[in-house]
C-alpha cells in the first residue's frame, strides 16, 4: 500500500476529487494548509502597510491506495491539478505498513 499526499492549488480541489471519483477512489482526506515551495508569495497593502505574504493557501489531499494502482492515481491527480504555472504543488508517495478498518477489523488492502 502507498499513501499519496498531494498538495495542490485550492481552486483545483473539485477537479481532483472528480478525477479520483472517476477512477473509483472513494477514500480521501482533505485539509486546508498554508505553505510555499519555489513559488514566490505576493505583496498585500493595508492602509500603506506592506506585507509580504509567502505562506500561501493550499489544499492537502491524502489517500492510501493499493500498490498496483499507484501510477494511475498519481497521474490522475497530477493531470487534474495542473495549470502549468509555478505554485501547482507537489505529490509525495509513502510506504504504508498496514491499514485497519475500525468497524470490522479488516486489515491490509482489504481495509482500503
Amino acid at each position: 500500500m502507498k499513501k499519496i499526499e498531494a498538495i495542490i492549488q485550492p481552486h483545483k480541489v473539485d477537479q481532483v476529487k472528480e478525477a479520483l471519483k472517476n477512477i473509483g477512489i472513494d477514500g480521501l482526506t482533505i485539509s486546508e494548509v498554508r505553505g510555499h515551495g519555489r513559488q514566490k508569495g505576493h505583496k498585500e497593502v493595508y492602509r500603506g502597510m506592506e506585507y509580504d505574504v509567502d505562506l500561501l493557501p493550499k489544499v492537502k489531499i491524502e489517500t492510501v491506495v493499493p500498490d498496483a494502482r499507484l501510477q494511475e492515481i498519481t497521474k490522475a491527480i497530477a493531470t487534474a491539478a495542473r495549470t502549468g504555472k509555478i505554485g501547482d504543488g507537489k505529490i509525495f508517495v509513502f510506504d504504508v505498513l498496514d491499514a485497519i478498518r475500525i468497524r470490522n477489523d479488516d486489515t491490509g488492502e482489504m481495509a482500503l
Partner: protein
Amino acid sequence: MTKPSPIHLQPLLWTLALCGSAAFAQAPASAEARLTALEAATKSAQSAGDNAWMLTSAALVLLMTGPGLALFYGGLVRAKNVLSTMMHSFALMGVVTVLWAIYGYSIAFGEGNAFFGGLQYLFLNGVGSAPNADYAATIPHETYMIYQLMFAIITPALISGAFAERMKFSAMLLFTCLWSTIVYFPMAHMVWGKGGLLNAYLGGKIPTFDFAGGTVVHITSGVSALVCALYLGKRVGFPKEPMKPHNLVLSVIGACLLWVGWFGFNAGSAVSASGLATSAFVATHFGAAAAALGWMFAEWVKHGKPSMLGGISGCVAGLVAITPASGFVKPFPALLIGFLAGAFCFWMVTTVKSKFKYDDTLDAFGVHGAGGTLGALLTGVFATSAINDALKDSSGKPLPLGWVDGHPGQVLNQAIAVAISWVLAIVGTLIILKIVDLTVGVRVSQEEEVTGLDISLHGEEGYNLES
C-alpha cells in the same frame, strides 16, 4: 364597517358646514378660541414630525456605535482580539449611558459658565416632555437628551481604535469614565451648551460653527487617540510582524452602517425635520462619496491598486470632515471637502504614520483627528447663510457666516476652536492615562497580549468553527 357612499355623505357635510358657519356668525369670540386650537394643532403636528425624525436619528446614531463601529474596528484587528475590540464599543453603550443619566447631560447641556454646564439637570431632573426652547423648541427635552447621549457614546468608542489589541479592559472602563467627564462633557458644553465659550447661537464669546461635532466628537477623540497610542507604545511585534486585518468583510459592513447612521448624526443635528436637515443629509452623503473616491484614487496612484479597505477608510474620513460643515455648506463644497479629506487622511495614515512610527492601531488619529481638523477649518471657509440663516442681525437679516459669505474672520474662530479642542484633548488624556496607569495599569502583560485579549481578558473566542 361599510364606507358611506358619497351621496349619503354629502348632506352630512352640508349640515356640518352650516352649523360651523352659523357658530362663526353668532359668536365671534369663539373664533379666537378656534384660532388658538388651530395653532395648538399646528404646533403639535410640527412637534410630531420633528420628534419622529429626532427619535429616528437618535437610533441611527446608536447604530453607528452598536453594529457600525464595532464591526468596522472588529474586522480590522487580528482574529484573537476581535471580541475585545467589539467590546470597547459595546461596553460604552452601557457605561456612558449611566454617566449621562447621572451627571453627564447636566455638565454638557446645563446652563452654567463658559466651560461647564450647571447641575440643574443632575439625575435628569426636569428633563421631560416639555421642550427646552434653547436647544430644540419643537421636541421634548427628553428627546434632545437621548439624541445627545448617542454622541457621547460614540466619541470615546472612536478612541478605542488607537489602543485596540493592548489595553486592559478595566483600564478602558476607567479611562472612558474620566475622559467623558474631563474632556467630552466640557467640550460639548463649550460648543453646544447654553453660554458655552464657542457656542455661536447661545452667547459664546468665540462663535464657532460645528454642526454635528467636528471639534466636539472627532478632534477630541482623534487627538486623544494619538496620545493613547504614544503613551501605550507599540503592540508587541509592530511593525515587523504582519498584523493584517483579520476580516475586511466585517469592516465593510461596519463602514456602510456608519455611512447610513451618519445621516442621523448630521441631518439629525438640525434638531427638526426641516429643509436644513435635508441640506445636511445631502452634504453628508456627498462628502462620504467624494472621500471614498479621493482615498481610492490616491491609493491607486501610490500603490498601484485601489482597495476595498481604502474605499471604506475614505468614506469614513469624508463623513468625519463633513460633520462640522454639514448644516452650513452647499452640495458642491461638500463634494470638495470630502475629496480633500479622502486624500489628506490617506496621506496621514500612510506617509505621516510610517514616518513618525507611532502605532495608532486602527488609525483613529489619522482619520478622526486629521479629518476633523480639516473639516472644522474648511467649515469656516464654506459656511454660508444661504444654507443656514439662523444667525440674524438686529434688523432680521441673516449674518454672513464663512469666507464665501465675505467673512474670512470665521476661519480664525474655527482655528481657535480647533486649538482649544487639541489642547483639551492632549492635556486631559495625558492626565487621565497617568491616573489610570497608577491605579489599575493601562496595558496588558506581554503574555496576555501575545495570547490575544479575547482569551486572556474575556475567556472566550470570536470564532469557534469546530463547535
